[in-house]
């Protein structure tokens, strides 16, 4: 029998990365501060997870300004969407397998 855990994406093991992906799936563009507020994490923690997701090509970073303040927003990439959907599917299959 195929191991159902094989389809799970290691990158989404972290709750924070999973959360960021969930938020970006349903929102076109989300700023760093909004992500921080919704995930309830510290700056440094969130930043390192975002860098990880970006390096994997799952999210896109847009650096911008509101006046003089930096305003960095994030959005999901096609690859990120695909990886996330596969991860959810794997989770669903695991649940079905248990029942």
């Amino acid at each position, binding site marked *: 029998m195929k191991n159902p855990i094989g389809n799970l994406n290691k990158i989404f093991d972290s709750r924070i990365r999973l959360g960021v992906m*969930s*938020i970006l799936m349903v929102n076109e563009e989300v700023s760093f501060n909004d992500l921080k507020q919704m995930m309830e994490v510290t700056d440094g923690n969130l930043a390192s997870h975002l860098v990880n997701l970006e390096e994997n090509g799952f999210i896109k970073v847009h650096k911008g300004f509101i006046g003089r303040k930096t305003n960095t927003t994030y959005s999901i990439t096609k690859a990120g969407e695909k990886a996330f959907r596969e991860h959810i599917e794997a989770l669903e299959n695991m649940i079905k397998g248990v029942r």
Partner: protein
Amino acid sequence: MDSQHQPLETLQDIKRIMERSSRFISLSGWSGVSAGICALIGAWVAHSRLGSFIVYQTARTHKGVYNEYNAYTSTELFTDLIVIAVVTFIAAFVSAFFFTYIRSRRNGVPLWDRTVQRLTWNTILPMAVGGIMLLRALQMGYYELVAPGCLIFYGLALVNASKYTLGEVRYLGYGQIFLGILNLWIINEGLYFWAAGFGVLHILYGAVMWWKYER
């Protein structure tokens, strides 16, 4: 740890985060009820104003009863109705805001985040466009169109807003649109339709929402 339930919990987590990040869920059922009560009071006051206008109009046609000093002119009626509408709107808005504020405090959700901003903009836009059109209708003397117009544009605003808050708002919107369209053909009963839509439907919706989510 029960590893069998972990994926299920993760999926529920994902769903919850998606909901919370894209919809404003602290809209209180009491807001609907209070807005509905305000609308009913407003409609009742407007009804009595209209009543006294008709009394004076009738008196005017029967010589002797008519008294210049206590005559109630159509301009006065018009101003009164506008004032009633504005006061009703403000009262409904403030009371609705109050209950939602309390609920979001209790849930520990900020009241002015991205989801609320989106909700506000998507509600205000159709309502503002409708408002401009109705102002023009008033200017041109199409008074009969005001009540159905209010209902239709408000209904459209609600259907639009339902994407950014509790999905059930959509059905409230459909109800308003239905009443508005019906009113277009039963044109002289505007006040009753207005009271049914803004009053009764709001109270019904608010009560159902309260029953479903806040009890």
